[in-house]
């Protein structure tokens, strides 16, 4: 308890000024600000949008069939055009955002939890079990992830839970290896030795002492990995082994639109652009974060302010 109370004031100070300071630094980089704003809009659309849209994604509007974008003839919902059944592309993009981001979030969480747990075991127990886990990881890593996902997905049958599982499997090694490396390092530290000497049980050592040191790293990797998972899901759905109709994500929307490329390019163009902008924003932000969290590089962000003033 005494160590806890010693840490508290410092930790409190950091959380009080931390986010605000990070945000102020973020606003100084126009590109990062733009990326952040775009992601906020997408997330808000994905969460709240489907309630506002109602049945617009299902309802065929035959007067709007293959309607080109940038025309307000049929109302604002058709500003991005309509597909061959006259369904509003804007509405479908919003619902696609929910599916795309939802699946990616679930997959990242799954791989984080499974990879983290297995890594903890592999790093902590160091015995035959740990070896087995590492060899299994080698198998997953020795093969192109998309192909592995295709084989697994085809044998399990395409469905949303399977899609999440397959995406998670291909990303697990990253979390697993990081966790294992960190655990190997942390368990040699003085405070862990002290806990062992005091007679702490294995579960107490793992959950009270080691896990809290590893989790922040895992969360950072999860945030960076999110863009990769979005891309992987899109590719699988584009190839037809991901999400199945009537459900759809941005990736499967591109696949649908591919057939009408010559006379209605916008059906395939918008969803792909959304994927690009989302992953680009995520990568710009994580790049910015890397600069921010690297003490040797942070001065670049702080210098930018002095330049401007």
């Amino acid at each position, binding site marked *: 308890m005494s160590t806890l109370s010693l840490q508290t004031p410092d930790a409190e100070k950091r959380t009080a000024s931390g986010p605000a300071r990070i945000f102020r630094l973020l606003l100084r980089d126009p*590109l990062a600000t733009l990326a952040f704003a775009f992601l906020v809009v997408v997330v808000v659309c994905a969460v709240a949008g489907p309630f506002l849209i109602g049945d617009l994604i299902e309802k065929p509007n035959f007067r709007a069939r293959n309607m080109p974008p940038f025309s307000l003839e049929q109302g604002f919902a058709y500003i991005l055009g309509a597909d061959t059944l006259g369904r509003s592309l804007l509405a479908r993009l919003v619902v696609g955002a929910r599916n795309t981001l939802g699946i990616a979030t679930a997959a990242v969480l799954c791989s984080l939890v499974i990879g983290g747990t297995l890594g903890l075991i592999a790093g902590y127990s160091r015995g035959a079990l740990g070896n087995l886990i590492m*060899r*299994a990881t*080698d*198998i997953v*890593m*020795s*093969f*192109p*992830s*998309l*192909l592995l996902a*295709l*084989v*697994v997905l*085809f*044998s*399990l049958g395409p469905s949303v839970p399977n899609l999440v599982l397959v995406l998670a499997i291909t990303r697990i090694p990253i979390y697993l290896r990081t966790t294992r490396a960190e655990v190997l390092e942390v368990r040699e530290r003085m405070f862990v030795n002290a806990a062992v000497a005091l007679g702490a049980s294995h579960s107490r050592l793992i959950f009270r002492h080691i896990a809290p040191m590893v989790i922040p790293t895992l969360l950072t990797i999860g945030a960076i990995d999110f*863009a990769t998972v979005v*891309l992987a899901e*899109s*590719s699988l759905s*584009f*190839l037809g082994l991901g999400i199945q109709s009537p459900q759809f994500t941005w*990736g499967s929307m*591109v696949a649908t*639109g*591919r057939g009408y*490329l*010559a006379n209605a*390019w916008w059906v*395939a*163009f918008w*969803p*792909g*652009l959304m*994927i*690009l902008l989302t*992953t*680009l924003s*995520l*990568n*710009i932000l994580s*790049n910015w974060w890397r600069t921010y969290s690297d003490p040797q590089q942070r001065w*670049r962000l702080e210098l930018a302010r002095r330049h401007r003033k």
Partner: protein
Amino acid sequence: MFGYVFKRSLQSLVAVAGLLVLVFFLSRLTGDPAYLYLPLDSTEAQRQAFNELHGFDDPLYIQFGRYLADLLHFDFGTALSRNRPAMEVALEAFPETLKLAAIAMTLSLVLAIVVGALAATKPGGIFDRLATTISLAGASAPDFWVAIVAILFFSVSLGLLPTSGTGTPLHWIMPIGVLMLRPFGLLTQVVRGSMMGVLTSPYIKTAQAKGVRRTKIVFVHALRNALLPVITVAGDLAASLINGAVVVETIFGWPGIGKLMIDAIVRRDFALVQATVLITAIAIFFLNIVIDLVYAALDPRIRHQTA
């Protein structure tokens, strides 16, 4: 050094073996191939005869034993969908992918080294910002969408390039361009990051003080040390280039191993799936050995390591 490489290859050989076992049993889970290969109105007896003929009626472990025994005789089974030896079909497609991947990888590596190194010489400058943004976009772009937009623009609108197929040099441009996107984007960032670290180290300062020319410092003194992490990433990327190849080959109708594998999976052509997986895994296995050797050649700490 050879002990190190040997140990690493032994590890990846175990992984390849595990992968083959995994794929064998997973592909058997996908369902009865008889329904796909026989006409819809085939009788139960016909389906049974089909399964007996191809040995699909035996228990899985017997099928697996037979598969292993055949492997030792270099018999990889018959590709049901084409009625030809599976390995023959796979070996025909493999060079097509290899050519595509090798050209794309070489071009993106060279381009990334030049662009990344130049960007690192002046961090925060206009060229650096431009290079960073472009490489980020390359790494973030969904390749299937870029391929479609490229077809739309270069083939449908301008009529400059053929939409798909092989034959003339023009057919190569779009597949290679799309395949290069991701490796180029990621490698440029790695080169830039690693170069920035190296350029601040004391021995570079010494070289500057001696009055060595700037280009020589960047491309001779600094590059050699900056290349180590680049080679690791390039190795990982070369394997995952197959991911891109699947998409690119599907869209541009390229007769490579990626397209072959997708076709085989969808048509439940077990032997062909296994043959393509085996070829890909072996190719990646050798690639890893080459990367380890290159790494050892560049890094004296590994070169002089024993086992």
